[in-house]
């Protein structure tokens, strides 16, 4: 009897340990299925603004949907009439309670066809909130008047959770910008940060097989506003962005051997990083959280060790000292005191971490497959990375690891190759490269693998990095 109790106790303890070790990605992925339901009907514009409303409506929907904090109600469930302003909502007349005769079916619930708040609150829409508004041209500018209506409040006069006017240029870019701004304010009402205003730097490859060209580009988080940064007409790759978003560092072959460049982005200017003379490789730079130094891989009696230096290349010193390939170091943005990197020191490349002084090196991935491209979550608790675990050599997928617990979640599942993950500043989105369409393109997703969006379609694009 004693023995049975002992065994049961041991089993219970084991189960509790296992339960505690269950994937703990809280704060990272919204597991709560009860998201607020949001109705986002198409807004209309006056004669001058209507031409840009398709871009506006598409952008607003995409921003709200991609945020991952709402359940967007499908448009087919909406009432036939969409109010254009808060004042269009009417208070339903008082219900006459006629006594029902025997056998008589109860009358259908009265509706306002869309003009009553209850029309949006009740089935089939069943929304908690609805966005309304309209656009018009004023002084040759695109002006949007927008409301977020809280359907839980009975009187429409008090239901405006947000009422604001947005003014931008009278073109498609202006219409998109007002949509981003409107979405930003709505997200803020729910405590979420909009990614509008952040930037994704990436590499676009062109040229021929014999003389390939790769340049650094930048775009908005929705893939719009793509702009070329470097014009070396050479191979430039592996961009990273400074914590304040003002600078990028990257690798270029423009002067022969791969070397590091540090650029300001607005205006685009070479800030002159002096590469170590005689090093055949100096590459894959990334910034420390204070933005004052960069860590990178460089050859020193063989390629490569992890080095740290000031932004101009001075005060150079090596951190790691293995005789194998150490690559792509990333400093924990929260602590500033540890470095994640990829290394071949135990065989096929794996993800490691060490203190920034090079001590306490530990392997984070379990040694299976090949692992690369570590990217720290802004909170410093998680790493996104690419791993071939469970797939053929070279067939990478995106994973997220809780660094303290070493448990991980797989976010992509063999839809082409998926590499180069980089966290968005909101800590909820990941941008990455995928070949799932047959060519190398840039995609974003929520950190649970949902809300996939393709951001580039033209040419061959890779190595995205998400900055402010």
């Amino acid at each position, binding site marked *: 009897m004693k023995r049975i109790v002992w065994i049961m106790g041991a089993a219970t303890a084991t189960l509790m340990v296992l339960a505690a070790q269950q994937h703990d990605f809280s704060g990272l992925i919204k597991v709560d299925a009860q998201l607020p339901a949001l109705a986002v009907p198409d807004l209309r514009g006056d004669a001058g603004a209507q031409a840009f409303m398709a871009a506006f409506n598409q952008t607003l929907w995409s921003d709200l949907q991609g945020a991952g904090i709402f359940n967007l109600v499908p448009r087919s469930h909406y009432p036939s009439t969409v109010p254009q302003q808060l004042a269009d909502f009417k208070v339903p007349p008082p219900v006459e309670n006629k006594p029902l005769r025997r056998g008589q079916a109860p009358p259908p619930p009265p509706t306002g066809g869309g003009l009553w708040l209850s029309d949006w609150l009740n089935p089939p829409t069943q929304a908690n909130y609805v966005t309304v508004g309209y656009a018009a041209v004023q002084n040759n500018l695109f002006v949007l008047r927008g409301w977020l209506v809280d359907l839980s409040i009975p009187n429409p006069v008090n239901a405006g959770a947000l009422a604001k006017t947005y003014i931008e240029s009278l073109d498609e870019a202006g219409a998109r910008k007002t949509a981003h701004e409107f979405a930003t304010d709505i997200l803020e009402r729910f405590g979420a940060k909009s990614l509008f205003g952040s930037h994704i730097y990436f590499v676009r490859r062109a040229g021929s097989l014999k003389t390939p060209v790769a340049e650094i580009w930048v775009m908005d988080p929705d893939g719009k506003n793509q702009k070329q940064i470097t014009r070396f007409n050479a191979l430039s790759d592996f961009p990273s962005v400074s914590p304040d978003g003002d600078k990028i560092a990257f690798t270029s072959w423009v002067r022969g051997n791969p070397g590091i460049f540090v650029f300001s982005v607005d205006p685009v200017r070479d800030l002159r990083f002096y590469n170590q003379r005689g090093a055949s490789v100096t590459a894959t730079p990334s910034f420390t959280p204070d933005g004052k130094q960069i860590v990178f891989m460089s050859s020193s009696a063989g390629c490569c060790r992890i080095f740290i230096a000031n932004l101009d290349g001075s005060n150079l010193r090596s951190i790691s000292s293995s005789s194998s390939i150490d690559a*792509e170091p990333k400093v924990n943005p929260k602590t500033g005191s540890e470095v994640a990197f990829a290394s071949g020191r135990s065989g096929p490349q794996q993800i490691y971490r060490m203190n920034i002084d090079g001590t306490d090196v530990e392997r984070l991935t379990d040694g299976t497959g090949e692992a690369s491209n570590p990217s720290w979550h802004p909170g410093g608790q998680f790493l996104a990375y690419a791993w071939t675990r469970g797939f053929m050599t070279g067939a990478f997928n995106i994973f997220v690891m809780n660094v303290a617990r070493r448990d991980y979640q797989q976010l992509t599942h063999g839809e082409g190759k998926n590499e180069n993950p980089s966290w968005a500043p909101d800590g909820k989105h990941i941008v990455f490269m995928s070949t799932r369409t047959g060519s190398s393109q840039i995609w974003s997703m929520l950190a649970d693998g949902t809300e996939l969006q393709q951001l580039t379609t033209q040419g061959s694009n890779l*190595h995205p990095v998400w900055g402010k």
Partner: protein
Amino acid sequence: MFSKRKITVVCLAVSIALFAEGCKKKVPAPPPPPPAPVPAAPAPAPRAPVVGQFSAEPSTIQRGQSATLRWEISGEVTSVAIDQSVGTVRSTGSQQITPASSTTYTLTATGPGGSITSAATVTVVTPPPPAPPPPTPPSASPATVEQRLGSDVQDAFFEYDKSELNSEAREALTRDATALKAILSEFPNAILMIEGHCDERGSAEYNLGLGDRRASSAKEFLVSLGVSGDRLKTISYGKERPQCTESTEACWQKNRRAHFSPGQ
């Protein structure tokens, strides 16, 4: 002692026996034997094989070209052979030959009736010498370093995720060493680049290191063979400059290489 009767019986028996003997000698002669069979016509003497054809076509060739021997033997044949190393052949056939000089082929056909020979001659003429190349004016530009590297120097190939030289890579680089020394002495100011490349599978970042190690391995080996290390530089292209893009082992192997190019 003996009774008269017994003597009589004996005498009688003896006389009968004698009589009988005399009678036997007098039986008639047996019938004559059947006539001897008519002897068969004597077998004709075996014929010697007949050579229907033995020829060489064409009978005149230029050195290095081929002619065809054809033969057709009729009659009783037990063996057919052609000399000049052609050997035993069937009674009808053809054979391609490439004599280095004019040759007479003798065919010998042997049968019960004797053997017969026949000869065919292939005349080999020496081709006229090719036209000499146009003379290069002494001031004409010599081959560039790039052209020389392209024609005289081979890539060394590597295994996946490896920068060590296997025996094939060593062989290739050993041949390259001779050519590289010649090129470096011909172009005393030239610097040569050893490019390290990788296939598309590993991460681009890690492959920067792997490409660098491949180029360094090749350089070290060449220096050990006496190529001047001061004039060999290395550069890693990782997987940034593949020479093919198919996702096949053949293409991956082509891209895992150390390649030579003129230095800047």
